[in-house]
């Protein structure tokens, strides 16, 4: 593990309890993601990929071990502390886009900016800038149900970008998209990584998508089984 790790998992356990049954999804997971790296996570369904992203983004906390971001233990923060940390440092892109249907594209993108000190005019401008980066400058006032799946995912990407976080977490971002739209999103992620220096962790089932990453981690039953590509 190199010293410039932005995100580090050390001996992470995650256990889900279903009645009396305990499900060890992650057991002693160690992994590091370097600043500026584009990492792909692959593995069979149910192996714990989303669980890793949730832990990395502070949506959930480990049952054992630590998740650190820039040296800071995320699990040690309070709920509110983690929420604030998330709003400053992490952008999420989900397979299901997860846009808010009653808000326009611009309003969706501006939403996380409400948690920054920006005034309303600056928020609007920044949201518009993010939408132009993802190529939706002409769809700002559209509602999610007036957009195609690919466009929705681009709005979601713009929302993830809006606060200019260092880390982007994408959970099967192309899972629901056709080949062309998927390629657009992957191009976008690659560009954000190269040109804007975003650190990206992307879960995918698609080997072609994983090709875009610097490195691919393969996961099985909560353990890393294989790693391809060089650490960035």
């Amino acid at each position: 593990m190199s010293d410039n790790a932005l995100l580090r998992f050390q001996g992470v356990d995650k256990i889900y309890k279903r009645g009396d049954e305990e499900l060890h999804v992650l057991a002693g997971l160690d992994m590091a993601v370097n600043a500026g790296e584009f990492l792909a996570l692959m593995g069979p369904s149910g192996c714990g990929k989303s669980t890793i992203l949730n832990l990395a983004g502070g949506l959930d906390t480990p049952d054992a071990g630590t998740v650190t971001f820039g040296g800071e233990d995320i699990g040690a923060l309070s709920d509110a502390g983690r929420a604030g940390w998330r709003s400053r440092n992490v952008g999420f892109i989900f397979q299901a886009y997860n846009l808010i249907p009653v808000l326009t594209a611009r309003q969706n993108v501006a939403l996380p900016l409400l948690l920054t000190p920006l005034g309303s005019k600056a928020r609007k401008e920044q949201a518009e800038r993010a939408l132009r980066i993802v190529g939706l400058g002409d769809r700002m006032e559209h509602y999610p149900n007036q957009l195609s799946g690919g466009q929705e995912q681009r709005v979601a990407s713009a929302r993830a970008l809006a606060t200019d976080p260092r880390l982007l977490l994408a959970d099967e971002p192309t899972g629901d998209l056709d080949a062309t739209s998927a390629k657009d999103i992957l191009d976008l992620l690659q560009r954000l990584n190269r040109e804007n220096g975003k650190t990206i962790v992307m879960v995918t089932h698609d080997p072609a998508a994983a090709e875009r990453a610097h490195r691919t981690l393969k996961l099985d039953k909560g353990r890393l089984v294989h790693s391809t590509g060089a650490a960035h």
Partner: protein
Amino acid sequence: MGRIPWRLMFAHFRRNKLRAALTVGSVFMAVLIFGFLRTFIVGMETSLAECSANRIISASRLSLFAHMPKSLEPEITELAEGKAEITAFTWYGGIYIDSDPKHYWGRFGTHPESFKKVYGPDLILEEDAWQKWTDLRQGCIIGSDLANDENLKLGDRVHLTGNIFSGEVDLEVVGIYRSKVRSFDQKTLFFNWDYLNETSKAAGGRKDCVSTYCMLLKNAADSGPLSAKIDAAFENSPHRTMTQTERAFQAQFNSMWGNLPLFFGILGGVVLLACLMVTTNTMMLNARERIQETGVLKTLGFTKGTLLVLTLTESLLLCMFGGLLAMFIVQSVDGEILMFVIASVPPSTIWLGLGIATALGLVSGFFPARLVSRLEIVEALRRRA
């Protein structure tokens, strides 16, 4: 606490206008009913409370509507031994214009001079008018509300056709009174008893009838002993009396409708409860539909506190808006709501109505707020809309 995404709340209102309108409407109606019922009850109780403790009323023990002979008056006067002023009222009934209930206000035959001694202190009427009424056999005085409702002015004529009594009376309005107390209504006409008696007698109808004898005591402490004395004196006569204070008399009159305050209280409570169920259900429905959205907001970094405020504000806003509308209507129909009760809306009803609307908002927002604040992000995101 961070900034609150209010825009989101208004976007939901806009997207679901009908649901928002129905919620506002249900609170509006429940609080409106509360406002009217309470105004009615308070009006009834206030008019009771304002009844003078110095006045006692003798009526027939048989019923409020049975007549007593005029000949009791000198006997009662004697029993009073100068401790009270006495006047007599006779309910005339009769028909004014037609039998439409809106023309069926109170009209009594009485003696202007003794009437003035007993009820004058509660009324506002110029000395001129008292004098003119005393002097003019066919004169009458009417309350200001009656003057408004029937569009009557000084000098106008009021023609009544008897039904309890025979013949017809033709009256001239010589005075319009206003009342200083709520217990004395402003929708009644008073005319000369002698004129009433003579027209009916001439037409071969009833004569020498009195509905109630009313007394103003110099000393309220005499009310008990004098009432007992009067009732005892007529105990073994064909005209047994029931003498009680004006307040007790009014309460007896009110109780013709049964225990209205209790009934209305229960009615109002049930309506408010039904409304609470409707609003709670709607708010809960909103929260359930927005589970994924809540997960997204939390993912973006909005805190539990922010979402709690947003959820509570939404239900508060809808309920308080409904409450405000209702109270606006209630206070703008200030005045007479139901027959017999002259009720101006007390400010306490307005504040209570708004308070109830606020409470409805808080209580119906409680469960969704709890749901929203307890929701785990990972759980929320797992659910697909």
